[in-house]
C-alpha cells in the first residue's frame, strides 16, 4: 500500500483526460483491430488442432509433450485473450455475430452468461469494494485485514493452491453465489436453475476432453486423457495466477461501501486505478495474459479492444504521474510473490491496526 498519499487530486480533471483517451481509441477502431482479433482466433484454433493431432501420436513422449504444450497454450489464449475480452464486448463494434459478447461461449466450465453477470457487472462495477465486489478473495479467502478473521482461513494457503489447479470449476461454482442464499439475498430456485446450466456445460467439457478425444485416440487413450488434463490444469493455474495478480498484490486498495455514495465518473476511474495492478513484461506475456497484464487500463476501459491497452498504457502512466496518483506495476514474479505473501499473512488473525489501504483511500476521497 502506498506510503505517500497525494495531498489533493483533481479527480474530475483526471477523469476528463481518461475520457479523452477513450474517445480517441474508439474513433480510431477499424480494419487493423478486426484483423488482429480474427488473426488471434484463427491462430488459436490452428494451435488447438495441432495440439490434438500431436496427442494422437502421444505414444512418442516428445509428441505428448509438444501436443500437451500446444493445447495448453491454445486453451490459455482461448480463455484469456479471446474469451474474456470478447465477453466484455470489446469486439462488439465489429457487429460480427461470430465474435460478439452476446453469442460467444468459451472452453471452460463456467457458462458465458453467468460469468458475464458476476464478472462484467458485479466485479467491474464495484471493483474492490468490500461487501460489494465478490471477487475480493472470491468469497472464500481473506485477502484484506478488513475481512474479519475466522479459523477456516488457516487453511486458505492450501485451498488457494487447490483452487489454482481447478480454477475453472471454482469460477463456475463461485458464479452461483451460493454464499448469498442463507441471508436470503439469493433465490435458491434461481441458483438451482443456474447450477443445472453449469452441470450441462461441465458435462460437454468433460465428455470432450476426457471421453471423446481419448476414445478417438484408441490405444493412446490414457496419454491423450492425461495430456488434456495437464493442459486444462496448466491453463487453470495460469489464469488463477494472472487474475490474482490483478487486484491482490501489495499496492491494490480495498474500499468500503460508503465510497460508492454519489460516486462521480472521475471517482469511479480513480477507484479502478487504485484497485488494479499491472504486470510488466513483453508482448508474449501480454497476449498470454489476455492483456490483463494491463489490468489498470482494462479496468479503466473494460470495453476497449485488448490490443489497444499496450498502446495507451504509457499515456495512462504519464497521466497518473501528472496528477500525483500511484500506478502499481511489477514483474510477474514480484506480483505473484506479493499475492502469496498476502494469502499467507491473512490466513492468520490481524493485523489489528486500521488498514493503510482504507485510510489512504479515504484520504484520496477527501482530497477529491
Amino acid at each position, binding site marked *: 500500500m502506498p506510503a505517500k498519499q497525494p495531498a489533493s487530486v483533481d479527480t474530475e480533471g483526471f477523469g476528463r483526460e481518461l475520457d479523452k483517451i477513450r*474517445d480517441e481509441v*474508439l474513433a480510431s*477502431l*477499424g*480494419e*487493423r*483491430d*478486426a*484483423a488482429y482479433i480474427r488473426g488471434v482466433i*484463427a491462430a488459436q*484454433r*490452428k494451435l488447438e*488442432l495441432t495440439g490434438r493431432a500431436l496427442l494422437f501420436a502421444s505414444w512418442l513422449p516428445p509428441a505428448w509433450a509438444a501436443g500437451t504444450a500446444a493445447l495448453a497454450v491454445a486453451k490459455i489464449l482461448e480463455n484469456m485473450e479471446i474469451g474474456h475480452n470478447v465477453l*466484455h*464486448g470489446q469486439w*462488439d*463494434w*465489429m*457487429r*460480427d*455475430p*461470430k465474435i*460478439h*459478447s*452476446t453469442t460467444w*461461449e*468459451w*472452453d471452460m466450465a463456467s457458462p458465458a452468461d453467468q460469468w*458475464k*453477470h458476476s464478472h*462484467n*457487472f458485479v466485479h*467491474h*462495477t464495484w471493483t474492490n469494494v468490500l461487501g460489494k465486489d465478490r471477487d475480493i478473495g472470491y468469497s472464500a479467502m481473506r485477502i484484506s485485514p478488513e475481512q474479519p478473521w475466522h479459523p477456516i482461513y488457516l487453511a486458505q494457503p492450501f485451498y488457494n493452491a487447490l483452487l489454482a489447479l481447478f480454477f475453472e470449476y471454482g469460477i463456475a461454482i463461485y458464479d452461483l453465489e451460493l454464499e448469498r442464499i442463507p441471508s436470503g439475498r439469493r433465490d435458491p430456485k434461481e441458483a438451482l436453475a443456474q447450477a443445472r446450466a453449469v452441470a450441462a*456445460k461441465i458435462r*460437454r*467439457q468433460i*465428455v*470432450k476432453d476426457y471421453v*471423446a*478425444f481419448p476414445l*478417438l485416440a484408441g490405444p493412446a487413450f490414457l496419454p491423450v486423457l492425461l495430456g488434456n488434463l495437464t493442459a486444462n490444469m496448466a491453463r487453470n493455474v495460469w489464469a488463477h495466477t494472472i487474475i490474482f495478480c490483478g487486484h491482490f498484490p501489495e499496492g491494490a486498495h480495498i474500499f468500503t461501501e460508503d465510497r460508492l455514495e454519489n460516486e462521480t465518473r472521475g471517482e*469511479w476511474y480513480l477507484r479502478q486505478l487504485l484497485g488494479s495492478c499491472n504486470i510488466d513484461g513483453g508482448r508474449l506475456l501480454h497476449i498470454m495474459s489476455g492483456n490483463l497484464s494491463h489490468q489498470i487500463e482494462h479496468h479503466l476501459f*473494460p*470495453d476497449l479492444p485488448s490490443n489497444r491497452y499496450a498502446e495507451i498504457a504509457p499515456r495512462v502512466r504519464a497521466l497518473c504521474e501528472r496528477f500525483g496518483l500511484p500506478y502499481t506495476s511489477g514483474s510477474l514474479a514480484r506480483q505473484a510473490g506479493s499475492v502469496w505473501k498476502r494469502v499467507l499473512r491473512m490466513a492468520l488473525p490481524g493485523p489489528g491496526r486500521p488498514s493503510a489501504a482504507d485510510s489512504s483511500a479515504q484520504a484520496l476521497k477527501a482530497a477529491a
Partner: protein
Amino acid sequence: MILTRASVSPAALLHRLSGAAHWLTSPLLPEDYLRLINPLWAVEELYGRVEAVHAETCDAATLVIRPGLGWTVHRPGQSVRIGVDIDGRRHWRTFSLSSAPDRSDGRITVTVKAVRGGLVSDHLVRSTMPGAVLTLGRPEGAFVLPEPPPPRLLFVTAGSGITPVMAMLDGLRLDSADGPDIVLVHSARTPDDVIFGRRLRSLAARYPRLRLHERHTRTEGRLRPADLARLCPDWAERSLWACGPPAMLDDIAARWIGPADGIHVERFSLAPAAAAGSGGHVRFTRSGREAEADGGTPLLAVGESAGVLMPSGCRMGICYGCVARLRSGRVRDVRTGQVHGDAGDMIQTCVSVAIGKVEIEL
C-alpha cells in the same frame, strides 16, 4: 416452395456429421474450424466467395458469387442480404439476385449500382475483388412470379430495379410458342446507364414476345403513369411487376386501375434520413409494448418504465449486460453523441437514446 439443391444434399450430410462432431468441438461448432480451411463449408452462418466482378455500366457491377454449402436455391425475383466488412465493421444490405436459379455452375449473381454516398454499394462496385468473402443471408422476398406465370406481363423498372426482373426473364420461356407475352418498360439516365442494356436489347431483338421500351430520363424526363398507358395501352389488363425508386412506385400504384392483386411492387428503400431532434416512439417488438422516449432517457429506462423485461447490468455502458437487437431506427450514444444504428445491430440500451422512431427486439 423452397427447393434444396440436390437430393444428395451435401448440406444435410454435413449437418448430420457436424452434430456428432460437435461433441469434439464444444462449445464451438465443427464449422468454426472448417471455416479456417474454406469459409464456404460453413452452413450455420453462410458465406459466399466473389469469383468475378463484371462492370455493367460506369457505376454498376455484377458480382458472381459462389455461395456456401448451406445455400438454398432462390426463386427469380428474390433478394439476399449481404454482409460486408468495411473498416472492421459489418454492414448489411439487401440486393436482388440477378441470376436464374438453375445456373449449372451453382453460382449466383447480384448486380449492384453504386449509390451516391452509399457506403456498401460503393464498396461492392468499386473495391470488391475476386476472392473476397462476403456474409450471406438466405434468399427472401415475395416478389416472385406465380407458377405457371401469367400469360400477359408488364414489367416497369428503373435503374437497378431491373435486377430482379432480369432473373425473372431468364426463367421465362421466351422461345416457346405458349410462353407469356411481355412488355418491359425500363428507365435509366442514358442508353449507357441501362444495366444489362446489351443483353436486354438482344433478347428483345430475338424474341418478339418481349417488347422493350427504354426511357432515357436525361433527355425524355421521368416516366409518368400516363406514358405507361401510351406505351402499353392494355397495361391495366396485364399482371404488373414494378421495381424502382419509391416515388415511381407510388405514382404507379396511385394510378393503377386494374385488379388489386394484379400489381406487385418491390421497394428498395434507402435508409431513412434521421429525424431532426431526439426522442421518439419506441416499440419493443417481442413484448409488444410501446413508449414515447425523450432525447435524454436511455432506452433501458424507457423499456423498464414501459414494463419490458429489459436485460441490464452496470447502467453506465461498460458491462454489455443490456445489449439488445435494433430492428429499425437510429439511436444516439449519450457518451459520444454519435448517432448510429442499422437494422440488426446490437446496441447498449443503457447508453442509447432514440432518434426518431425506434424498434427494439425485446
